[in-house]
């Protein structure tokens, strides 16, 4: 083994029911490097990490850790920790009901001579850790008192303090804002200087190029290659991840902007509102139009959509569909009018994890028909197969439980659910969050295709570029109020200005 190498994984293979999750994958980590593990959803990044930390058992291959004779097989997270491999997951794995100090030290508390926990020592050491990381935290307070971002940092602090040789960060930045990400990077660089090898899994390409030294790319459970960062410019990275030359995303939108007339208005909202979430707003959507809702997180984007859909009750104003005034009291009313909503929290509001892909797809259709008019099984199978093919959903079979699919594919299933109801009007709330760039492009293309077929859409996304590519009109929201619309000269700059406020929007 090379002197600098602290972790090698050779020929790792493992199978999930019906899917080859990892096929002969190699991975090498050197001392003092930050190594990005990249790949699309379902490429096998998480699985590889779980094999390393003992959560999944692998079928073939070997793991070697520096300083340990022979092949290493971990049976649990604890096992891995003892061998110097610590992991911080995307979801925070700490106990909210314990103090910060305990969360840092549980399982390895400092003891006094009698074998009792030495609280004073524990608190003193915790305070030092927090101070070193420049985090303003009272370590005697319960963890739940702090924000998610701080909790994430505390989770990392715990991992770091365990004298790890290998630190695995699985999507650690998804709940952090920019300044917090910066702090995290500072911390990562400190650790790197100390000789810790860091495995960094993320979807954010910029972050990879900011901190990483080396990239390993996986695709469909196979190793694509390992590259020093300088040898793999962004475009090539994306190409490696997708396995094809990257067609420029910007080119998917047709050049000429469609022209809409007043007769084409499908949705006409006047003065609709919901107390406490969104102030009265007007919004018109034409047939075949894609309207983007933009604004900062929490500015009322989702809330606006929920009022139109009837998920939150409209308390003032009126909604006209096709020129007729209608009342939407609950989502089922909206569904019967040909609306669909793809919620932003797909885990909680979208998928039903213990049902199969087929059942998830036909769910909305069945709900529309009512409980007593069961869709015949042959029809269900036909629909499910059609959409699995159309949206290229990667699943072992149509009867696979949806919870076994990767995030991007789950999203496609929910999209299929609504497409199956053949809606005239579809609300997509953050349909591309947390999914890989290939699927993102596919979903964007699909949005444009649907609009081409004369369907109307609301598209909500935090990524402005994505909206610029798909939308013909943007509604700007700020602090629970619709503050303007942009229809002409859509560009990153004008949108940013409008979101920030004080700028000149085309009212």
């Amino acid at each position, binding site marked *: 083994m090379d002197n600098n190498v602290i972790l090698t994984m050779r020929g790792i293979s493992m199978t999930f029911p019906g899917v080859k999750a990892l096929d002969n994958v190699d991975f090498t980590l050197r001392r003092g490097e930050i190594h990005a593990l990249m790949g699309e959803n379902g490429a096998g990044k998480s699985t590889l990490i779980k094999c390393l930390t003992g959560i999944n058992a692998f079928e073939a291959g070997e793991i070697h850790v520096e300083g340990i004779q022979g092949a290493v097989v971990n049976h*649990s*997270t*604890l096992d891995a920790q003892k061998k110097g491999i610590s992991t911080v997951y995307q979801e925070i*794995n700490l*106990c909210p009901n314990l103090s910060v100090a305990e969360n840092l030290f549980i399982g390895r508390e400092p003891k006094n001579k009698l074998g009792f*926990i030495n609280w004073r020592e524990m608190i003193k050491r915790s305070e030092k850790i927090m101070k070193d990381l420049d985090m303003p935290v009272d370590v005697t307070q319960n963890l739940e008192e702090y*924000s998610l971002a701080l909790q994430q940092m505390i989770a990392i602090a715990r991992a770091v303090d365990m004298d790890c040789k290998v630190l695995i960060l699985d999507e650690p930045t998804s709940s952090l804002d920019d300044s917090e990400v910066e702090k995290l990077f500072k911390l990562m660089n400190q650790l790197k200087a100390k000789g810790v090898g860091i495995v960094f899994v993320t979807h954010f390409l910029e972050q990879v190029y900011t901190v990483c030294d080396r990239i390993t790319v996986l695709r469909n459970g196979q190793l694509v290659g390992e590259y020093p960062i300088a040898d793999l410019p962004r475009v090539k990275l994306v190409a490696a991840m997708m396995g094809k030359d990257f067609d420029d995303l910007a080119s998917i939108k047709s050049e000429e902007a469609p022209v809409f007339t007043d007769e084409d208005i499908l949705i006409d909202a006047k003065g609709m509102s919901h107390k406490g979430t969104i102030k009265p707003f007007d919004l018109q959507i034409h047939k075949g139009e894609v309207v983007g809702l933009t604004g900062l997180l929490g500015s009322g984007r989702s809330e606006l959509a929920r009022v139109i859909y009837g998920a939150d009750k409209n308390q003032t104003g009126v909604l006209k569909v096709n020129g007729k005034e209608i009342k939407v009291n609950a989502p089922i009313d909206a569904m019967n009018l040909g609306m669909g909503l793809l919620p932003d929290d797909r885990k909680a509001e979208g998928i039903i994890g213990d049902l199969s892909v087929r059942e998830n797809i036909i769910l909305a259709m069945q709900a529309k028909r009512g409980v007593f008019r069961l869709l015949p099984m042959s029809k269900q199978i036909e629909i499910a197969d059609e959409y699995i093919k159309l949206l290229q959903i990667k699943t072992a079979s149509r009867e696979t439980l949806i919870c076994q699919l990767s995030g991007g594919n789950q999203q496609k299933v929910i999209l299929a659910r609504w497409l199956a109801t053949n809606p005239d009007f579809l609300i997509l709330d953050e349909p591309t969050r947390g999914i890989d760039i290939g699927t993102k492009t596919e979903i964007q293309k699909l949005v444009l295709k649907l609009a081409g077929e004369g369907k109307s859409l609301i598209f909500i996304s935090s990524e402005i570029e994505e909206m610029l590519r798909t939308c013909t009109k943007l509604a700007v929201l700020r602090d629970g109020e619709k503050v303007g619309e942009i229809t002409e000269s859509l560009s990153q700059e004008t949108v940013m200005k409008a979101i920030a406020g004080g700028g000149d929007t085309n009212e």
Partner: protein
Amino acid sequence: MKKIKINSNTLLLLITIALFVVMYAVGCILYSDKGFTNLQTFLNLLINNAGLLCVACGMTCVMLTGGIDISVGSLIALDCMLLAVGMERWNQNPILLCILVLAVGVVFGLVQGFCVGYLKIQPFIVTMAGMFFARGMTAVICTDQVSISNKFFVSLAQMKISIPFGAVTNRRGVLQIPFIRITVVIALVVLVLVFLMLRYTKFGRSLYAVGGNESSAVMMGLDVKRTKLKAYVLSSFLCSIGGICFCLNTMSGNVQQAKGLEMDAIASAVIGGTLLTGGVGNVIGSFFGVLINGTISTLVKTNGKLLSSWSSIAVAALLCFFIVLQSVFAKIKDSKK
């Protein structure tokens, strides 16, 4: 001096303590002529509830993990029957029998803990089976009421430990020195040891971690299965200690003994601020929960005119009050975020 921050959990504990003080004060004002102000009345509260206190300590530990143990009432009946029949019919040494009872408790807990921790069966179902089993075994041993007349055991039960203060002369002019029984000493020692264990041992903190977020506890490298197993062993063991205390109080074995005691223990823990969902709670709270429980029935008894069912109604009202209070606190916490 360091500023002590009060979070919602300590606030709940303070409310429990305050409630006890208020309740007892009300009793003192209303029934001062009936001797409520005597120190002995308070000590009787401890004497009568020593067994329950031991059980409540164990129950708190199990509830911290998010579990529940409803087998404790029946286990106490089994313990008492073993002691009574052992001494009176089998002529065994009381000390040996006590050791046997404790061993039965440990085995009982091992089986239940294994089912909950390693086989991942719902604690409610597991301990319900334990409840039926223990009650059934009690009847198998003997269906009669068996009174204990063993000399050693009787002298142990009647032993008075005098308290050097608070003596009063009664109406006849006899000086009455307040006393406690050996059961109170046992129960208080249990209380202190469990308190220390929860605060200062790895096992104690693991109970909180498991109840707080089980999957996180696994990720942080704690042995969740083992922790749960130990929690149920501890509960059954403390319950057996409670059973001995209970027997010293009643001096008999009976199939119907301690029926519904598990519910008193759970009620005491909940009134004392332990969450049924786990992760929050303390034996000090449970101690005051037991005292409140005891005070209510003492108040009803001292009144003399009220039906004893009123004490159940009062406990029910208190339970509602505390559960509502807990959820209000949880709401406030959520809305702060």
